[in-house]
């Protein structure tokens, strides 16, 4: 960073910098670093949890009926779980099937909505409604066939599950599924308070 600043300043100030200007530049850079540090601290203090200020990015995705949703504003009340999955991902399906058995209770207790984002591309996208309905899932299922939302959310691999509070902040995320993980997720949902 300092290099680009000195370079840019060099252009603005003079081609042959004098000692004073060099000193000023150094001072300027130091103050910038200090300032950015302060800004960082402020940002940390506001949220406490560094994830808490992270919002869901806006990407337009379609559900299985063709309706468009803006991921930054899904229009859902209460906490939201966004779970990235694919028809070819065995642990993803295990996670969503495990939650499926608990979903009614979770919804009644916390008002949570699960959004299952399928990253299946055109090869397997058509199998998504077959699986979702065949398993009688009651989630909101969105399709991300070209990985736009996956990329925006910083997802490396699936399954990756995010918890979003009612104000749209990402408060928890977990990049794996092992039996029992759904209980940890439910604890995190309950931390957000009741309905």
């Amino acid at each position, binding site marked *: 960073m300092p290099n680009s*600043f000195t370079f*840019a300043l060099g252009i*603005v*100030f003079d081609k042959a910098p004098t000692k004073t200007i060099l000193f000023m530049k150094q001072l300027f850079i130091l103050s*910038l670093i200090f*300032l*950015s540090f302060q*800004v*960082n601290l*402020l*940002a940390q203090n506001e949220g406490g949890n560094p994830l808490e200020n*992270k*919002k869901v*990015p*806006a990407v337009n995705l379609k559900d299985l*009926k*063709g*309706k*468009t949703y803006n991921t930054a504003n899904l229009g859902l009340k209460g906490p939201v779980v966004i779970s990235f999955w694919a*028809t*070819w991902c*065995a642990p993803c399906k*295990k996670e969503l099937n495990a939650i499926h*058995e608990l979903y009614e209770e979770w919804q009644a207790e916390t008002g949570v909505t699960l959004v299952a984002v399928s990253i*299946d*591309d*055109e*090869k*397997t996208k*058509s*199998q998504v*409604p*077959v*699986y*979702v*309905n*065949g*398993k*009688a899932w009651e989630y909101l299922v969105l399709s991300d066939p*070209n*990985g*736009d939302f996956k*990329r*925006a*959310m*910083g*997802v*490396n*691999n699936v399954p*990756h599950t995010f918890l979003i509070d009612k104000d749209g902040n990402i408060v928890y*995320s*977990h*990049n*794996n599924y*092992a*039996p*029992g*993980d759904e*209980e*940890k997720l439910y604890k995190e949902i309950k931390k957000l308070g009741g309905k």
Partner: protein
Amino acid sequence: MVSNWNKVLRGFTQAAFLLPFFVFSQGNVSGNMESIFQYLNDDPIIGANQPPEKALVNSYMNAFYTHGNFKAGMRLESYLPRIQGYPNRFDGTGLGMRYAGYENDFIEVTLGSFYEQFGAGLALRAYEDRALGYDNLLDGMRVTVRPKKGLQIKGVYGVQRLSFQQGKIVHGEGIVRGVDAELHLNETFKRLDSLPVDIVLGASFVSKFQRDNNPELILPENVGAYGGRMKLRYKDFYFDAEYIHKGQDPSNDNGNIYNLGHAAVFNLSYTKKGLGILFSGKSVDNMSYRSDRTKDLQDVFINFLPALNKTHTYNLVATLYPYVTQPLGEVAYQADFLYTFKKGTKLGGKYGTTLGLNVSTTYEPFKNTAGFSPNDSSRVFYKSTPFRQSDSLYWLDINANVTKKINKQWSLIVSYFHIRINNDVAKISNFASGIIASHIGVLESTYKINSKHSLRAELQGLIVEKKDGQINDQGNWFTALIEYTISPSYFFSVMNQYNFGNPDPEKRVNYPIVTCGFIKDATRVTVSYGRQRAGLFCVGGVCRFVPANNGLTLSLTHSF
């Protein structure tokens, strides 16, 4: 006067430099990184070699920034050198992708690198798969407008990423231009909402330009591809279809023929709670569409031709005999079925039982050569009709599985697969010819010890049918896997693959591998040590050959 100007400039630059810090403190930064390190040993019996560097490392990091309507992002990549199985020309460290953009409800503009898909991607799909090292992004400009609710028009203009050398993107030679429009009638006309129908219509036009530098042929410098699509829903029935026509596009792929090309897909499905049925078809002829006509493999494809079959997950099924679309031509069909027997019924038991069936076939298209001379200067050598197939089989997959939860602790999945693949066309093995026919059985069982500890085991057997009394390909295989997980943070697994049926007794070897993992929130660290056989590593129907290796692999992923 001059010093005054200097003061003004100084003030201005200071303000300009401070601005980003305030802006960044309010905006949203997100991203992710991955780093994979390998230390490899020589292992001549499986054909694994130690590279001269001994150790290899791949890394990348995405950083995206949004603030209000503004967004920007980049990806840094590093190959020092690239891990095995990655494109061998990737090297160095540098920017692999970068963009800036602006978006509001009406318009979205992106400058720099972007990914895009028109419809089903038969005309245009720019995408990435980092695990494969696949990236055909477009570098240029994209504008998306949404003039009316339900209507979206996109325009793209750019050159494609071909490679990444010495830390820099290398672009393909040709320029890609395209426009796409999609209309969701139900969102545009609210009156339709009261009817049980849902209609989406779309159309695309894509064109590429590449200079003609061929001394012998007159090559078309501009090649267009265009077509339309529709999606219809009536109650629980759903139908979608897309058809793309391509102009004359002589290339290395098709042997510089001047035939026209086409690609068509359709899906028809019926789903309700507990039941899913799908029937799909696809017809492709002469549809390799690249922004550089001299390239091959997975380089600078403008379009995407999905293979019409299930993506399998069990090791022996997924990596030994996977199928990839033949862009020069194929006719394929698929049927997929899933049914859950309800809880409390005879077959459903206490927790419900799920039955899945899937069948897919692919054949060579029928190419009518009557009336075409191989010496004709038009270089049009045959006529094909969409969905008209010959009797030359490329691929057949029949598979079934039953998922059953026995009690609170135990669950079982039993699967069977029959796969026939034409190794002369969709080449996947150097040890086989003609059709490789295999039968695979898999038994998977999970036992939940308590709320955090679980044990999972997989047993897989693969039998290859003999061909003319001889063992075909590498013969029979057996795989066993045991995995122990402690929620939410740890896993340990041991897998062994045993090629007990190899025709060469010396190659009847074991491929053991141990893997451990640690997961904390969005950070994941895995370490594995052992042998991995050569195979095709595929994601979504695109595959890359990964050579056999023996050694240590360390991987770190993190999202922020």
